[in-house]
């Protein structure tokens, strides 16, 4: 396993790691001072582009490229939305950063706003992070008081206001245009793209949306340079012209049936078995693993014989997963029923679909009903085909929905049934021996909320 110095988590072990004095004592805001005094926004954009940084929020879009799409020919402000809605099951790295090192996040945010010439930033924070809210608000107040934020920052031409804006318990607010709609005070219905936020985003103005960990990386790129960033991680695959590589440090969340759950830092490209065995202390209670979620539940499943998968932006695809996602690994031990796993996954997405697109609204609701029926011992073999049909037809990839929530709902279904087909068939045979081959429709059970 490649070991290297901790960067993103370097500060969190210090006492009072969230305080401004601690952060400054470790060299914090020096880069912000230097950049304001010596560099131009374009230089920072070029630097970030050269670093190869890709967004940590789930889609892995190259950050510098996204920034270069900003429409700069319009009068009026550019907005920056910091996506701190973190709600993907299994994921908690943004929370760790915001609670334990809020100034690192803010310095990265300020630098990113400067680079994109944004003059107003909103931190869209999920409501369920009360400590992060308190810490971020205190950190912002300290920054205003210290002159790192506000009008003509540190005597420069640049002015920036940052506001905290809290969500209200909806996963879909993490999708960037759902976030924007929610920020505007409406229901968080994702928008049809194009136009992309960089052209027409919040309040119909050019807008950047970036994840918390992404801007934290920007802070270190500005301090250490793009070569340093590119010295970590995985270079582009020469046989794939569309792979820009996976560079830099990454925060891996590890939870589920593992001895030492937690947030671990390592360069991109860490193998799943390295994460589980070397950093996480192995599967809990001396058991064996059966499967793992590679990057938040939306990304699907890896079987235990697929744990050589590298956690970078390219490798999970080769194992039939949706992608790297949030690099949040959840371990399922040998006692877990995949039927039960899939029920839990379908329950989540049926609850969180915003209901705007029919394939997603109906697909997530019906897949849950099918799973409820299967769990109640009334499943049919045919239901597996039905579930796969739902899974294969909802999402951006098949082109039937507005946002990627539906792809995230589909992947666990497709991976679980295709990778563990035998277990599903056994379950059906065992729990419903008579009805197992039934072709007749069977009424779906009403989910508990409707009953």
């Amino acid at each position, binding site marked *: 396993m490649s070991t290297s110095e901790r960067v993103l988590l370097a500060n969190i072990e210090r006492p009072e790691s969230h305080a401004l004095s601690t952060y400054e004592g470790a060299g914090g805001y020096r880069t912000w001072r230097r950049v304001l005094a010596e560099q131009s926004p374009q230089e920072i954009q070029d630097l970030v582009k050269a670093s190869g940084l890709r967004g940590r929020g789930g889609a892995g879009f190259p950050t510098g490229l996204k920034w270069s799409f900003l429409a700069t020919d319009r009068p009026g402000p550019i907005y920056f939305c910091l996506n701190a809605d973190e709600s993907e099951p*299994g994921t908690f790295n943004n929370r760790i950063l915001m609670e334990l090192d809020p100034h690192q996040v803010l310095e990265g945010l300020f630098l990113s706003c400067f680079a994109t010439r944004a003059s107003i930033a909103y931190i869209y924070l999920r409501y369920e992070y009360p400590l992060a809210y308190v810490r971020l608000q205190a950190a912002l107040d300290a920054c205003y008081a210290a002159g790192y934020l506000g009008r003509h920052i540190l005597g420069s031409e640049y002015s920036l206001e940052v506001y905290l804006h809290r969500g*209200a318990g*909806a996963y879909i607010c993490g999708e960037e245009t759902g976030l924007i709609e929610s920020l505007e005070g409406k229901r968080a219905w994702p928008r049809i793209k194009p136009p992309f936020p960089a052209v027409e985003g919040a309040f119909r103005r050019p807008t950047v949306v970036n994840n918390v960990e992404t801007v934290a990386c920007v802070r270190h790129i500005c301090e250490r340079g793009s070569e340093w960033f590119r010295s970590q991680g995985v270079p582009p695959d020469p046989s794939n012209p569309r792979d820009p590589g996976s560079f830099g440090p990454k925060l891996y969340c590890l939870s589920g049936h593992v001895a030492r759950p937690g947030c671990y830092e390592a360069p991109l490209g860490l193998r799943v078995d390295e994460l589980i065995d070397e950093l996480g202390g192995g599967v809990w209670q001396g058991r064996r693993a059966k499967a793992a979620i590679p990057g938040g539940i939306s990304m699907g499943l890896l079987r235990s014989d697929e744990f050589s998968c590298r956690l970078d932006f390219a490798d999970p695809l080769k194992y039939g997963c949706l992608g790297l996602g949030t690099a949040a690994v959840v371990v399922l031990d040998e006692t877990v029923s995949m039927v039960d796993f899939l029920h839990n996954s379908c329950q989540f997405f049926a609850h969180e679909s915003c209901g705007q697109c029919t394939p997603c609204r109906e697909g997530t609701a019906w897949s849950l009903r099918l799973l409820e029926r299967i769990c109640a011992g009334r499943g049919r073999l045919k239901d597996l085909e039905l579930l796969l049909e739902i899974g294969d037809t909802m999402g951006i990839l098949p082109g039937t929905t507005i946002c990627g929530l539906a792809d995230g709902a589909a992947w666990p279904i497709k991976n679980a049934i295709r990778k563990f087909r035998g277990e599903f068939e056994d379950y059906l045979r065992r729990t419903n021996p008579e009805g197992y081959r039934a072709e007749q429709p069977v009424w779906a059970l009403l989910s508990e909320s409707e009953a």
Partner: protein
Amino acid sequence: MATEEPIPAMATVDRMLTDEMVAEIRALLPRYPSPQAVTLPALHIVHERWRHVPRQAVVEIAELLGLAPSQVQDTLTFYGFFQQDAPHGRLRLWVCRSISCHLRGADALLAYLCERTGLRPGETSADGALTVEFAECLGACEHAPCALGGTTLHTCLTKEKLDELLKTVT
């Protein structure tokens, strides 16, 4: 934030928004280019104080922001967080049911909690002390199974820890 002051019954008050709440909401207007963007913050201000957002408050927020009441109501109902018809309990306890917590026994915990309190998720005890809720991933999966009670995160929950917690609920 839980408050000890009694919550007035709808019929007994003319206005739900106190002067302080109106001032707090007004102070947010300069942060956004459109008044509608203050909808969620305003709902939170009312919800924290009265533990629900009755229709009268929706009308008043709309008036304050220059919106139709239906616009505020539309937003309110989209977000599962806001209660409308009755206040939630002095403690609102969200038990996570998503995958990491589920793998560590969240289902049994939630069932135990419901059994002990006689409440189903979403219901409030008759004395107004407790509302039981399920939550989707609370972003604290390394502490699974976990629950958020008010602003306190309860980590690595067990039935025993739940019992202790319930003793403090008044």
